[in-house]
C-alpha cells in the first residue's frame, strides 16, 4: 500500500435518473415513477484475457520459453476502482495433456510482469498464493495489464499432437 500524496478514494459521483422498480413504485402511485438520485458508482472489477499465452509449435526434445515481455505472452487486463487494492491469484498448469491419452507435456518457469512493474516475477504454477497489487490512481478507473510467460518442455520422444490445458486468473478487491 503506497501513498504518494493525499489520497482520498476517488469515487465519481453520478446524478442518475433511475426508474423505480414496479414493486417500489406501487407504494407511491399507480404506474411507474422517475426520481432523481445521487449515487456513488464503484467501478466493478473487470478481468479480461486479452491475449493467449501462445507457444505455437514446439520441436520435440526442445524447450520453448515465452517471456512476459514477448508478443506471444499471455495478457490479462484488469480494470477497477482507481487506487483500489486488489488481490490476484494465478493458478497455471504444470502439465498439459494430449487429449485423454495420459501423455503430458511439462510447463514450468512461470513468471509474470505488470504494466506497473515490468521486471518479471516468478511464481509456482499451481499456486493459490494471492499477489497484492494496487490499481493506479486515475480520474476514471485504474487499470493494470498483467503479462504471463512460461517454459514448455517437449521431451525427446514426446508424442506429436495437441497438448491443451487451462490457467486461471482470479482477481478481487481486498477492502471488503
Amino acid at each position, binding site marked *: *500500500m*503506497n*501513498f504518494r*500524496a*493525499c489520497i482520498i*478514494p476517488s*469515487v465519481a459521483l*453520478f446524478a*442518475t*435518473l*433511475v*426508474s423505480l422498480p414496479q414493486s417500489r413504485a406501487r407504494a407511491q402511485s399507480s404506474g411507474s415513477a422517475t426520481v432523481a438520485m445521487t*449515487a*456513488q*458508482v*464503484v*467501478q*466493478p*472489477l*473487470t*478481468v*479480461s*484475457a*486479452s*491475449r493467449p*499465452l501462445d*507457444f*505455437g*509449435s*514446439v520441436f520435440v526434445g526442445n524447450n520453448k520459453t515465452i517471456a512476459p515481455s514477448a508478443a506471444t505472452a*499471455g495478457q*490479462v487486463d484488469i*480494470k477497477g*476502482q482507481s487506487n*483500489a*487494492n486488489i488481490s490476484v*491469484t494465478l493458478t497455471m498448469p504444470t502439465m*498439459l495433456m494430449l487429449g485423454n491419452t495420459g501423455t503430458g507435456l511439462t510447463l514450468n518457469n512461470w513468471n509474470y510482469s505488470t504494466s506497473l512493474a515490468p521486471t518479471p516475477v516468478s511464481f509456482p504454477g499451481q499456486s*493459490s498464493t*494471492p*499477489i*497484492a497489487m494496487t490499481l493506479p490512481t486515475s480520474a*476514471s478507473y485504474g487499470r493494470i495489464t498483467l503479462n504471463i510467460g512460461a517454459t*514448455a518442455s517437449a521431451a525427446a520422444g*514426446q508424442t*506429436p499432437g*495437441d*497438448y*491443451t*490445458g*487451462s*490457467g*486461471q*486468473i*482470479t*482477481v*478481487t478487491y*481486498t*477492502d*471488503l
Partner: protein
Amino acid sequence: MPLRPPIAMTLTWYALGTLASAQLPGVAVDPHMVVLTPRNPNGRIVVFNPRATAAEFTVHLRFGTVTTDTGGQAVVRMADDTAPQPAIHENASAWITPYPTKFILNPGASQVVRLTATPPRTVAIGEYWSRVVVRARELVPPLSPRNITDSSVRIGLSLETSTVIPLFYRVGDLSTGVTIDSLSATRDRDTLAIRATLTRTGTAAYLGVAQLTVNDSIGRPIATASKRLAIYHTNHPRWTIAIPNSTRAQPHHVTLVLTTNRPDTPKGTIIRASAVARTQTIPSS
C-alpha cells in the same frame, strides 16, 4: 434470462472502454458486495460479459477472508477450489445457493444470478462469510483444427478469468470495532513505512478506512493519506507515505485514525463503529 444492466452500470460500462476483439474470456460483476439476513435471505448479482465473443460463465461459492501477507499487503485468501470447504464456524458457503450456476453470455450481455441463503436452523447470532466466484471461459478450443499430416507438438493454453465478491450473512444485532494493538514507523529518506497491528472486535467484520496523518516537529501536517480496509480477524498492514525532503531529518508524529466511513458501499451495509486513533512519534534521524 439475460437482462439489461442497470443504468448506472451501463454508464460504468462505457467508461471502461469499448469491447475487445480477441476471442478470449472476461467477466465483470455488479454489485461488489452482497449482504443477506434472515429477513432478506435472497440476493442477486448481475454478471456481465465485457468481451466481443460469447463465453461460458460459472458461479460458485468459496470461503475466503481478507488478511495481510508478510509484506503487510492486503490479500484475499480463498479456500482451494479442489479441496473440501474448510469447517470454519463463519463459513456460509455450504448454505448459500446461486442460481443459475452455469450459462453462456453473448458479447455485452448480462445475466442475473440469484443467491439464496438456507442456513441451519441452529445458526447462532453472528456474521457468516463467503465469496462468490464468477468465472469466464472461452467457448472455442485454444487450437485451430489440426492438419492430419501435421506431426508437430502444438500447445494450447486457455486462460480463464474470475472475479470474486464478498457475501455476508448477518444474524441478529451485530457490532464491530477495531483496536490498534501496535503502530510503528521507520523512515527511509523521503518515505515513511508505517506498520500496524489491527485486531477486530465485536461480532462482525470491520469494513473501514485508515486515515494517516504525518505531522512535523511543530505539529504541522505534512502528509496525509487514506485507504479502505477490511479486518476479519487480525491484520498487520504496512503503508508507505511520502514526506517532504526538507523535513526528513526532523522528528515526525504519525497518527492513524480508523473509521467506518465507507461511502463506496451500498447504503445500510456497513456496521458502524466508533473511530479509534493512535499516534506514534518517530525521533529525528
